[in-house]
């Protein structure tokens, strides 16, 4: 059962957002793991890389963008969907240019997220 459900990682400092996204992803048939910050995610065993990473851009400590760049530098690139409550179109463009799978502005519709996740999972890194 576990093997059939792709693992989606959610990194967001807001507990409410984390919990809501986990519920949504599980309801859509994914397995969701949530992390309060970038450091917690990096501590997760690298042997089970998630199929998709939903990453908050602004966080205390290491930001979403820094985490993304770090993973790429370590050649552990994961299809990543950036989410942010801070509307910044330039950052969105730069993220997508850098290879991000998507960029969503909070609050976003569930279909938008799930479509992006589905696409990311299908394409792979």
């Amino acid at each position, binding site marked *: 059962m576990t093997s059939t459900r792709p693992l989606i990682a959610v990194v967001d400092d807001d507990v409410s957002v984390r919990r*809501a996204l986990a519920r949504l992803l599980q309801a859509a048939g994914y397995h969701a793991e949530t992390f309060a910050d970038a450091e917690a995610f990096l501590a997760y065993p690298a042997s089970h890389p998630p199929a998709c990473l939903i990453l908050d851009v602004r966080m205390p400590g290491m930001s979403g963008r820094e985490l993304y760049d770090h993973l790429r530098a370590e050649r552990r690139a994961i299809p990543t969907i950036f989410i942010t409550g*801070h509307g910044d179109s330039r950052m969105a463009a730069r993220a997508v240019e850098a290879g991000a799978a998507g960029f969503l502005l*909070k609050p976003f519709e569930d279909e938008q997220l799930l479509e992006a996740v589905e696409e990311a999972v299908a394409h792979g890194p």
Partner: protein
Amino acid sequence: MSRVWRDRLPAALAVALLYYAGAHIGALLKIPPATPSAIWPPNAILLAALLMHSPRDWWWLLLAALPSHLAVELRFGWPTSLVLALFITNCSEALIGAAAVRALSDAPDRFDSLPRMSAFIVGGAMLAPIVSSFADAGVVAVLRGDAFWAVWRARTFSNILADLIIVPAVVALVRDLARWTATARPRVQIEAALLAVFTIAIAVGVFEAPIGDSLIPGSPRTPVAFLLPCFLWAAVRFGPSGVSFALVSTALVASWAGTHGRGPFNGLPAADAVLALQLFLSVMAVPLLCLGALIQERWRTEAELADRLAFEQLLSRMSGAFVLAPGRGVDDAAAIWLGKLAVYLQVDCAWLLVRSSDAPSMSMGSSWVAPRVPVVSSVDPMRDLGWLVAPTLDAAPVAVEDVGTLATDERASMRRLSVRAVLAMPIGAGGRVLGALVLASIDGPRPWPELLRARLRLVSEVFAGALARQAADAALHAGEAMKSAILASLSTGVAVLDRTGRIIAVNERWTTLAHDQHEIVTGDVSVGANYLELCLMASMQGAPHAGAARAGIEAVLGRSRSMFTIEYETDGPAGERWAVLSAVPLSGADGGAVVTHTDITERRRAELEAQRSRQELAHFSRVSTMGELTASLAHQLNQPLAGILSNAQAARRLLDSSQPDVEEIRSILDDIVEDDRRAADVIQQLRELMRKGRTDHVLLDLNTVLQSVVRLVSSDAIIRGVSVEVDLTPEMAIVHGNRVELQQVILNLLLNALEAVGTGSDERRVLLCTQLTPTSVEVMVEDTGVGIVNGADHRIFEPFFSTKPGGMGMGLSIARSIVEAHEGRIAAKRRTPRGTIMTFVLPLVGGRAV
């Protein structure tokens, strides 16, 4: 002809004329062939002239007599050498006599006391003729071959008689006759005339009556003693002068008779008869003259007593006048009494000089000039008589008895004022010179005897008292005038209450402000009303502040409070007004209080206006700060909104499933509710900060306020990538303040710190911490940013000072005004190695809570 000679001429002419007349009379009374006559007046006339003048003048007086001497004696057919030699002996007699009298008597030309008369008789009438007759007899013996002793005897007795009886008469004639005829009462003058007639008649009866033709029937002749009543009469009623005139008259008649072989001594040879006559008259003269002198001495003593009495009366009336004169009347009293003093002292001018309070000089206080004297207008004491006045400033009197004795400049200054003699006496009290009294004589030189000066010292003391009082009064009036001017100029109403609360004095402003006091008193608040009673009435009628005011003023009157102040709002015709009433105790034995009433409407309006504009500015600043926070706030709202949306959509998916997990849906709904609250909180916080206007100060925990602001900026910090560390005291920091305004201050400091750190720094850190002291709470915002530009530490709090591009420069200025309105203070300093520490301190309410 010089002025000196003009002054001398009358005396010289008188001497010449009298000498001539005297020599003629002497010549007529001569028994040929002897040179001496029965009575020889010229020498006596010369002696009289010398006695009346100072030795300096003797030479020209003697010279004046020479022409007369020559005119008379050259006609006798005597050799010129004899005539000249006789003139020299005559002069020597006068000189010896004058010098001797001057040496023996304190007043050579006065015969009004026994010592003076004795000096004259011994020195002038005895010594001089006796001594000079040796020379005279020698000259005659040598030049004419006459018997020395005969001549000496004849001349000695002749001249003793002449000097004895003529000198007092001549002196009286020259010095006193004019005044006597002018001032003596008619009755006395008639008496004198009668005395003269009786004396001459009796003298004629005694000396001229032929033998056997006696006044007493049966008597061989009229006794010489018949003359005695006349002489006594003269002595008792007219003193030495009277005796002298009576004796002269008698002597002339007797000599005339004697030299013509008549009279009581006509049985003797001519020379012996004359000698007998001379002895008789001389022996009579001495006691009579002494009697006259004694009597005059008594008159003088009586007159002096009367004079002293008169002076003492003047002095006491003067003192009385000054004591009774009101302070401002001292000048008038001084003018009146200066005049009375001058009249009493018989001076022509009297000036009362007053010393200036600030400079060593004197100015004219009062001046009096005798009516007959030409008025010397506008005398400036320092300018016109500086040499006279200057010593009086050092309490030294100056006396000038005769202008002639002065140096040229000083003489000129006196002549300009037509003054011949002057006396300046300092007026002092308690070792301080207050002025000077200057007396001047216009008519001629006059002595300023010690008696006069002693009296003037007494007068000066009276004037000193008056001047001192006047100065004190003037100072008092100046003080009063200054006080009332100050009171009148005050914009504060002032009333003085006595210890019972009765109003005893008010200033003008008090009256004009009276209307504003209706919150405190009822009725008329003018002098005479009892303020406490008016408060009580107002209190009973429900005036809101009356009770407090009454209690406060009563406490001040009772000395249980040193000050009472009440501030209140009142309605006036021009709208809302504010006033302050305060009361302070009145020092002094009588107690009482000073109540002031100040209209502070303007001040209060200005305060309110300042407060309003500060609040508006603060609001404006808050709104613009909100603008800066927009992105951050959007983030803060978007987080819960995102949570809500995703949760709701997840719930819908769960409900779409065949077996919905109800527990999970409940949990989702709880999360949605929580997120909604979070969003509402953000909105609430925003609304609060955007709210405009007055918010009352309340008790609040500063730590809570700080936390709310930290939450507000947390998103901004995240966006900027800055970590905000918060280190608040575990205890509450209770302050009295306006929550929104304090939030604004902290927000401002935090945003500044975030911005400073955000601009390119390796260590991006902002620390917010609080510390408590026993009385205050200190809030520090520390950043690792660029720091304050050198020298701008204080300027950063000034309005419109900004280091930020696009900054308005109002944030810190407003922060400071808010902190100061909370009775706190704010400061900035550089942090090492970099960054800034902003600190503000607020007073803790009730001290530190444990």
